[in-house]
């Protein structure tokens, strides 16, 4: 059944493209590549802003209120996942939900620090340049962790979640699945 709406999927893969390309072009000092790097950052910010808005007005499984749960439920989900007995969520599971919050925040921080680095005020200001680089690298590390979580959950519930984010379709809930 349809779970991820077209906006969520397009926003997801656009952000993936922006982040990976921005990271790959970050150290290349060729004027046209630098310009591309800057535009990738602006595009990422636009996608993040739109996704935040969609998290309040979008359909059920796009909404933050649907997938952000408190620390108690998140920890108990983590515990059951370690024992291999966690329920299948049709939407984002609690850990995945928090990872989305962390990824969006970190990607926004990477974009904003990069943007500030090329304003007159922060041009050549070492700590801003260094923060931008550190946040960018942290974002990639988090993305790797995100993919690891996706693969783990895919194997656990025998469902290709990468494909689901592409097509929007997931297996209908059954048994003790949480819809």
């Amino acid at each position, binding site marked *: 059944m349809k779970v991820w709406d077209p906006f969520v999927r397009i926003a997801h893969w656009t952000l993936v493209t922006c982040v990976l390309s921005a*990271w790959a072009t970050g150290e290349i*000092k*060729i*004027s046209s590549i630098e310009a591309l790097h800057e535009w990738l950052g602006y595009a990422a910010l636009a996608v993040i802003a739109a996704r935040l808005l969609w998290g309040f007005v979008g359909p059920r499984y796009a909404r933050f209120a649907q997938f952000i749960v408190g620390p108690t439920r998140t920890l108990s989900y983590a515990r059951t996942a370690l024992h291999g007995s966690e329920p299948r969520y049709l939407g984002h599971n609690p850990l995945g939900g928090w990872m989305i919050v962390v990824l969006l925040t970190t990607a926004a921080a990477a974009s904003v620090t990069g943007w500030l680095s090329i304003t007159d005020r922060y041009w050549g200001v070492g700590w801003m340049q260094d923060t931008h680089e550190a946040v960018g690298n942290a974002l*990639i590390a988090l993305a790797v962790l995100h993919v690891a979580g996706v693969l783990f959950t895919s194997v656990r519930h025998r469902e290709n979640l990468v494909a689901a984010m592409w097509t929007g379709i997931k297996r209908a809930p059954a048994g003790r699945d949480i819809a």
Partner: protein
Amino acid sequence: MNLKISTLAFAFALGLASLPSRATGFATCDSGPRDAWQSQDKLSALLKDKGWQIRRIKEDGGCYEVYAMNEKGERVEAYFHPRTLAPVPRGAKDHKG
């Protein structure tokens, strides 16, 4: 089919993530041993005399890399040769100074 797309996407991401992150500077300098280099302070003073406001001086590709606001108040990122303190044009390879 779906598995194929996602496997490809994942392989692409992995490939991109494993690219070596090389610092490919705007220019490189043939600057030799450091004891023949002039100090960053001297370069800074020289540029301040031109009306520049110096923000940061680093080493990059054997050159001094300067972030500054120039005399017109524009952001500049310029390269200088550590031995001669002469400007190094963008794209220069192993600039002799």
